[in-house]
């Protein structure tokens, strides 16, 4: 088992830092190009949600990204915020649903995360925050 935790300000410019750092941390597992793209996308979507929806772009707040893996190539990604929370998770999960239509959001973030992960869970409480927990088995390192 190996694990890393990052905490960064709720700023969109930290989204690329988060996805690149996540992939750098997973390099010992030798993920293939497709797996790298999928993990980058998962992290990007989760972090974007935390910043944009959890914190409404409030840069005084902090987003936490935790990544762990075992030596069979099972990767766990946790992204949490202590923001506004999701009132209706089922609605938020619907493809193309977005609460921020005016900001040109596609409403595809949750669908993309779900598609690219083997297990995807959301824990959220109104005004307390949201944590997404994603597990993904890397085929390239599976024994």
């Amino acid at each position: 088992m190996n694990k890393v935790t990052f905490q960064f300000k709720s700023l969109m410019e930290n989204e690329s830092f988060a996805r690149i750092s996540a992939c750098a941390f997973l390099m010992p597992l030798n993920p293939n190009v497709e797996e790298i793209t999928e993990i980058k996308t998962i992290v990007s979507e989760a972090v974007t949600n935390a910043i944009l929806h959890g914190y409404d772009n409030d840069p005084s707040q902090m987003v936490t990204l935790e990544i762990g893996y075992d030596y069979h190539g099972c990767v766990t990604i946790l992204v949490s915020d202590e923001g506004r929370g999701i009132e209706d998770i089922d609605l938020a999960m619907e493809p193309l649903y977005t609460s921020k239509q005016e900001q040109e959001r596609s409403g595809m973030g949750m669908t993309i995360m779900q598609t690219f992960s083997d297990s995807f869970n959301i824990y959220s409480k109104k005004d307390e925050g949201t944590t997404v927990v994603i597990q993904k088995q890397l085929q390239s390192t599976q024994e």
Partner: protein
Amino acid sequence: MKDECILSIQSNQPKKVILDFRCVDFVDSTGIGFILARYKQCRLLQCELTLANLSPAHRTILGMSGLFQLIKEEVLE
């Protein structure tokens, strides 16, 4: 970049807009939102919007939203 693109379409009112992905190394749902919004903007101006030089990874992500039913892809030289 987003504002620049919106403004450029609005002020030039072209017949056609091609979004070239040759130098784009990462696309997520934010990109889908951007493309769909430009599609709507172009449609109002009766302008055609197409995508070019998509990688298989781009196609996978963009395809999830069904946007290829609305927007054509083309190959540039």
